[in-house]
């Protein structure tokens, strides 16, 4: 399973994602420079957290025009797995690979804290190793994590079960929009992470790479990386078995 971590000039969680995959998950991983136009050699691509181009204008607004994003878009359209974390999620929204937009946090301040998110759907390559309803303790660190989309888009997300993570209380109970203890940035419907209709592109605001080792506070984020590895292995073994099936 080869992971690629995209490096924009202002990415600052690129190394954290790289380290988590290499030393904790134990999978091969390489950095991908933002001017690279070829990413097809990877099995999964991570758009990491940070401030891709300073984000003074709007988060991800410049990054989406990077050469690498054209390649990531092709990769996604052909079914490759793309995981956007924090700034990576914001870039996926700007690039139109995921629906909706990010507003500033309701209280207009940067927030770095441990939050609890609930796995709403395990029928994705990013959550297949988790239990439905499982509560993960994972940190957030962002200024713009207040997810928003219009009513039609929200209905569509719900109908297709594209809402993968919601901010919740530690015991897993749902959080209201203005319940800032549980839904710290005021996100619509307490949305913390969504995927596309095809389920191969996921964006989430919390940082699973920061929740990969217990001594740093939590290892709950690992389930996301493990799911990716599991689903890729499954796909690989299926791919192997397909020709046999044809020949038989």
């Amino acid at each position, binding site marked *: 399973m080869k992971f690629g971590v995209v490096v924009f*000039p202002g990415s600052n969680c690129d190394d954290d994602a790289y380290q988590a995959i290499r030393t904790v998950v134990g999978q091969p991983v390489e950095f991908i420079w933002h001017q690279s136009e070829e990413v097809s050699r990877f099995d999964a691509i991570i758009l990491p957290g940070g401030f891709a181009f300073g984000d003074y204008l709007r988060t991800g607004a410049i990054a989406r025009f990077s050469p690498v994003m054209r390649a990531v878009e092709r990769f996604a359209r052909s079914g490759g797995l793309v995981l956007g974390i924090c700034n990576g999620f914001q870039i996926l929204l700007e690039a139109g690979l995921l629906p909706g937009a990010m507003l500033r946090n309701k209280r207009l301040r940067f927030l770095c804290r441990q939050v609890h998110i609930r796995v709403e759907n395990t029928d994705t390559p990013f959550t297949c190793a988790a239990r439905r309803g499982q509560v993960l303790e994972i940190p957030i660190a962002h200024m713009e994590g207040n997810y928003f989309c219009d009513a039609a888009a929200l209905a569509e997300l719900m109908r297709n079960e594209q809402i993968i993570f919601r901010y919740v209380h530690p015991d897993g109970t749902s959080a209201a929009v203005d319940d800032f203890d549980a839904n710290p940035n005021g996100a619509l419907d307490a949305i913390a992470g969504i995927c596309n209709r095809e389920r191969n592109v996921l964006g989430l605001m919390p940082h699973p790479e920061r929740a990969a080792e217990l001594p740093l506070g939590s290892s709950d984020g690992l389930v996301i990386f493990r799911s990716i590895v599991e689903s890729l292995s499954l796909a690989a073994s299926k791919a192997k078995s397909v020709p046999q099936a044809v020949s038989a």
Partner: protein
Amino acid sequence: MAMIDTEIKVTPQLAAEHGLTPDEYARIQKILGRDPNFTELGIFSVMWSEHCSYKSSRVHLKRLPTSGAHVVQGPGENAGVVDIGDGLVAVFKIESHNHPSFVEPFQGAATGVGGILRDIFTMGARPIAVLDSLRFGPLAPGPGAGNATEEEVARNRHILDGVVRGIAFYGNCFGVPTVGGEVLFEPCYSNNPLVNALALGIARREDLFFARARGEGNPVIYVGAKTGRDGIHGASLLASAEFSEESQQKRPNVQVGDPFMEKLLLEACLEAMQTGAVVAIQDMGAAGLTSSSSEMASRGGLGIEIELARVPQRESGMTPYEMMLSESQERMLLVAERGRERGVFDVFHKWGLDAVEVGKVTNDGKLRVLHHGQVAAEIPAHALAEEGPRYERPVAAPQASPAVSAPLVEFTRRGTDLTENFRRLLASPAIASKYWITEQYDSMVRTNTRVGPGSGDAAVLRLKGTKRALALSTDGNGRWAFLSPRLGAMHAVAEAARNVACTGARPVAATNCLNFGNPEKPEVMWQFTQAIDGTAEACRVLETPITGGNVSFYNETLGKPIYPTPVLGVLGLLENSDNALGSAFRNEGDAIILLEAGGRAGSFEHVKREFSSTEYSKTIHGIVAGAPPAIDLAAEKRLIDCLVKLAAERAAVSAHDVSDGGLAVTIAESCFASDGLSAQVSLGAAHPDAPVEPILFGERGARAVVSASRDSLAQVSAIAAQYDVAAEQIGRVTHGAFQIEFRGAPVINEDISLLRRVWDKSLQEALESA
């Protein structure tokens, strides 16, 4: 080459307007053998400013201990360097950005962080942590707030908000975790907040870089942001003068920060250094192009010639004077090996940064500044950088300070509701939870933070690829330094070291930021020299040499100085990061143990004097008087050794030192940091004659509270005895009510969740309700 004839005629009066004394001006004339031109006058005025030259402090700073087993580089470079094993070095320093943060809180604080980060990576180290030591005026009127007006407290809230946002803006984008520091409040900081930023970086020892030019003919290369007119005279007029009513007009002197640009500069510099083609590098901080060029030349015993027309500029029509004095941020000057500069340019261009050859190293020892081929300035580099004035300013102990002789606290009569006083103490901004502030900082990026804000006495950062970790704490009690500068400084060292030791790390080195008033006042110089002596003595005994730092004078507004405020940053080394201890109680039923290395309290009068300097005295009684607690440095050292051993042997499961607010607050904080645990404690049996308040809220040093399982009690006692530290079990970890008994009678009794709420919400309410 012809000398540029600027239209502005240099006169002694113009020199005075640049902050130069007649003697200093005469010295300039002697060095040059002629009158300086306007550009040269500007150059001398910034380099010889207090901020850049340390002219009032240098003779005293020599008394600080600066060498030790771990020290690789002491003061004199961009930052101190300490050997931390495994071929790695820690590079760290603390620096002030006080005046800019008052004039323009957001940008002032942001560029303070930016400046100290550049000091770290200019040495080849990647920054891994920032701590901020902040002091503001009161946020609300009331006891301890002096007679602050509504307008004043509203402005203080505005300043705090801007400073916190500025720190967050810069550090979060740059990608360095802000992991600790302190936030304290005193009326004297209302018109002069303190913003001291400490940065820590890591490098392989052989990859260290220094700012020493080498090799005649080697190209001098300008990299990073373009030069503009911002920050001109930041160092001289803003940092080296008192504030007056017109200070707000100095807002254009404050620089503007671009953390994204700094992030590019970081990555490009570290990558360029790896090419092997970089000979020397220096950031353009205070006095920008002037200091970076003259210091690199001076340290290398060479000269540098630069052509200003080649300097990337973001405004047109800039004069040599403006370019040499600009303090535009996110710029560096480096010397490359001739013939290999292409590789350096390639790296910077890859990161989208300007990199331009602006000059060359010469052998004539001069800083020669050309503008379109004409000489705009020509000054001996060494004389400019190193031969500035040095003053032995007059020192005079003040007439007995009114606070020292002010009425002392009268101890509580029977019937006082100590639980209510305790609640008020927990709600005081100095003691209340700082979560509202720290959650605005990314404290986790780079995934090294083992003990972050609020969860331990010091920040603990693991070193990836090794078993080790580093611990860092900043401390400094201005109120104590005001009452006794020498004792106050000693306590600052002791507390920072104790905090580091509470995490299990051994303190190995220190950095200091000395915030004082106008050094031209003999009583301010007395405070300064006393604080130096106290720092020196404490650092010697605690084996934490000073490896660098910063002096900030002229912290006065309208003639009123701040409390003298020495802030100490102490670095500790933890051999096994898995042994790091936090301050939180861990398990119900664990024993709560008070470790006490110092002697018993003195006479009743003595106790009163000491108690009148506490946070409790200030908050509950509105009294700031008496003297700081006496200090026993040998006892502090024994306690530190004991704490390190307790962690290494895994005998204790939490450790928290006794400081602001005393024992009751210490125990409560260990509950607040925990997962809903509480405490039941019994005090006073060992002090049959002592009044209750000093036992609960006194702030004597050399004490810490640890918790341990019942099975480990004997081990804790044995280790404590080994270091001659008294270990007394004073209670146990419980659920529910927080109870403290004093000689058998309950004196504090309250549901822990209610106390927690008070402590948790107080700062947020003070800042958001207004």
